[in-house]
């Protein structure tokens, strides 16, 4: 009894999640795909590390942190360009993208330096 209601709840939840998500604008969806992709790359690296070992530790670290960093920066960008977000009403999207590019530049310069 309890189990079936839980499943029903989960189904309803998924449905409403999907319907809510379809309403998001396309550019946000693209960013979401980008975030998921970079997270997925990070997971692959972690799995690889678990199998093969983390010998050039700086390479592993820079690889994984580059993925997480990219994802985090993209999340920040998504927060900023999201029109529903009231906190960033007066922030033009151009500024948000410029900031995003700058921080990515810094991030990847550091990573290139650290990759060794």
């Amino acid at each position, binding site marked *: 009894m309890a189990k079936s209601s839980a499943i029903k709840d989960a189904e309803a939840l998924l449905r409403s999640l999907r319907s809510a998500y379809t309403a998001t604008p396309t550019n946000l969806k693209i960013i979401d795909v980008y975030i998921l992709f970079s997270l997925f790359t990070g997971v692959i690296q972690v799995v690889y590390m678990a199998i093969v070992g983390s010998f050039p530790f700086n390479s592993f670290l820079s690889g994984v942190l580059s993925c997480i960093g990219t994802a985090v920066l993209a999340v920040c960008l998504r*927060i900023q360009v999201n029109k529903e977000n009231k906190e960033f009403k007066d922030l033009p999207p151009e*500024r948000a993208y410029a900031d995003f590019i700058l921080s990515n530049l810094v991030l990847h310069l550091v990573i290139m330096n650290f990759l060794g």
Partner: protein
Amino acid sequence: MAASSDTVTPSSLRLAFGNVFSLFILILIGVLAFSIRIFSVIKYESVIHEFDPYFNYRVTQFLTKNGIYDFWNWFDDRTWYPLGRVIGGTVYPGLTLTAGTLWWILNSLNIPLSVETVCVFTAPTFSAFAAWATYLLTKEVKGAGAGLTAAALLAMVPSYISRSVAGSYDNEAVAIFALVFTFYLYIKTLNTGSLFYATLNALSYFYMVCSWGGYTFIINLIPMHALLCIVTGRYSSRLYIAYAPLVILGTLLAALVPVVGFNAVMTSEHFASFLVFLILNVVGLVYYIKGMLTPKMFKVAVTLVVSAGLIVCCAMVAVLVALVASSPTKGWSGRSLSLLDPTYASKYIPIIASVSEHQPPTWPSYFMDINVLAFLVPAGIIACFLPLTDASSFVILYLVTSVYFSGVMVRLMLVLAPAACIMSGIALSSAFGVFTRSIKFASIGKQADAGDNSDGVTQNDVVKPDRNEEHPKEKASRKKKKEKENVEKAPIATKKSEKRLLMLPMEASVVAILLLMLLGAFYVVHCVWAAAEAYSAPSIVLTSQSHDGLHVFDDFREAYAWLSHNTDVDDKVASWWDYGYQTTAMANRTVIVDNNTWNNTHIATVGTAMSSPEKAAWEIFNSLDVKYVLVVFGGLVGYPSDDINKFLWMVRIGGGVFPHIKEPDYLRDGQYRIDSMATPTMLNSLMYKLSYYRFVETDGKGYDRVRRTEIGKKHFKLTHFEEVFTTHHWMVRLYKLKPPKNRIRGKTKKSKSKSTSTSSKRSATQKKNPWQ
């Protein structure tokens, strides 16, 4: 700027005037911060101070001479003989790189300053920067008025002056600026939610990591604040932008600094930030989903996710705890542990405990170092709670943690100083705000503005210039606020009644303002006194005031100069580790141990030698290839921090590694004494002999002016050492190891039969001594 618009002319004109005025004040504060710190140059000379700065100076010299790449790969063979030390990988490079860059810029501008001059003036320059950074930080928290007050307070807070007078060329000099600036950028990001500032924040954190080991304070404080925000339900997407990029970028950048390296992800000091990063991501996701769903569906989702998520969380935490617990020190370094558990160092690491600046402070030192700020801080905390914003909660958290740390170690009083200045700045500024407002409204309401201005001017004439300037400034900030309120078109009536509530009787507020100014004046007087008298002594040149004028003791430099002129370049000099940096930097001779203290055994070897009898000591020193032994002796002139006073630490540290050195042997009934009641072990130790050799010839009695007693053993000869140089005031004494005697058969036999006890002791030493 003011002429551009005519609709809002009066207020914007006032605003522009306020901005220019505050810029002017900031420049003056910078000048003040710089000039209050050059007492040491005026009273003494332009010289590097103390111990660590000499090492930094030497590194800077190397950097400017050989360039950055050689600097990273520098293996220093002139210290820790015969081990040597990898300088590039074990030093926080921020300070030296800063000074090196400054020197390089100045030289490429054809301003031919010497490296030493640049080093001497780095600290005052950066204290001006720190004052500006404090202004920015406090402005983000409580407005420009509080910012200017805090900056003025920081410019002359004695605690910070003690670490940043001209010549005090140490990491803290630039680190405090970096610390405050990083906090400012964090708050700025938190207030604006701009990714640009988040990037800058990470870069400034990088500079802090380069500069000082205290960066762990930042990487623990900011997560604490983020956690606090989450727990108290103040999560916002701005918090995410301020925190998440900082952790990722900051960790990567910290790992770039060789001395930190993989520690940035391997030690417990940094784990808090990762944990909070995870929590923040989860919380961010939850808030996002909450925004998407209807409240009812969200409740369903929560019940589903919580039951599943709890299990995963428990597993994760268990793994993490197991990982941390598996390492012997629980992943914490000794220095951090001694912060968390104040008794840790005295129990396990005598070398940390032996440094006087690692001791807990006494109450008077709080009054000495932050003076009236100690009383203003509570008021500042209250002011921060009305209203409590993200920024002000951060400042409160900063204050509370730094108060704790300053209670553990005297040295960390320095971290408290900016927090205390910010709090006091806020307190003073809001107090002035209340009082001046009540004066303004008590006089006729219509003439408020004019009356206010003239009021401010007449009152301010009395006191010091810096106080003078803050005052109108904070009015400007209030005006800004008022203008904002106008824009919001808040009903004026309620505003007025609100202000009426905060009103005090006119007389009371005038008296209160005068009292506050008196307090400020007292603070200024104290700071100037501290800067001029207490904290400006370079400690390599000493002065003493006596009835027949000023005496200057320049013995240290005399001795180092003697060494550099009269000994061979490759000779090794043994001394207690305090003088290692100075010997390498000033005399350019190889030393056995220095202030870096990275190898406890090596230091213990020197400590053992100093506390052994002459022959055993000679053997230890000879095995280390030592040619000269340097001791610092203050008995003649009454210089209290000499080697005899440090001797018990040598015994303790030596005994910690070589158990045949026992502390009780050197104490008579638990008392440390060097007079006729002293133990024979004490009187026969090398340190005693080298310090008091020929001492009786000075006054015929051998009266030690530090210990205020006559020494125990007055007439003795040295068998294995010979005195080569003693400085003018006997403060530094240099001895040379006698060459080993030829082995004449009868003589060796004789000495063997004579001192069986010493030879047995020697064999014990030989076993213990790792260099044989």
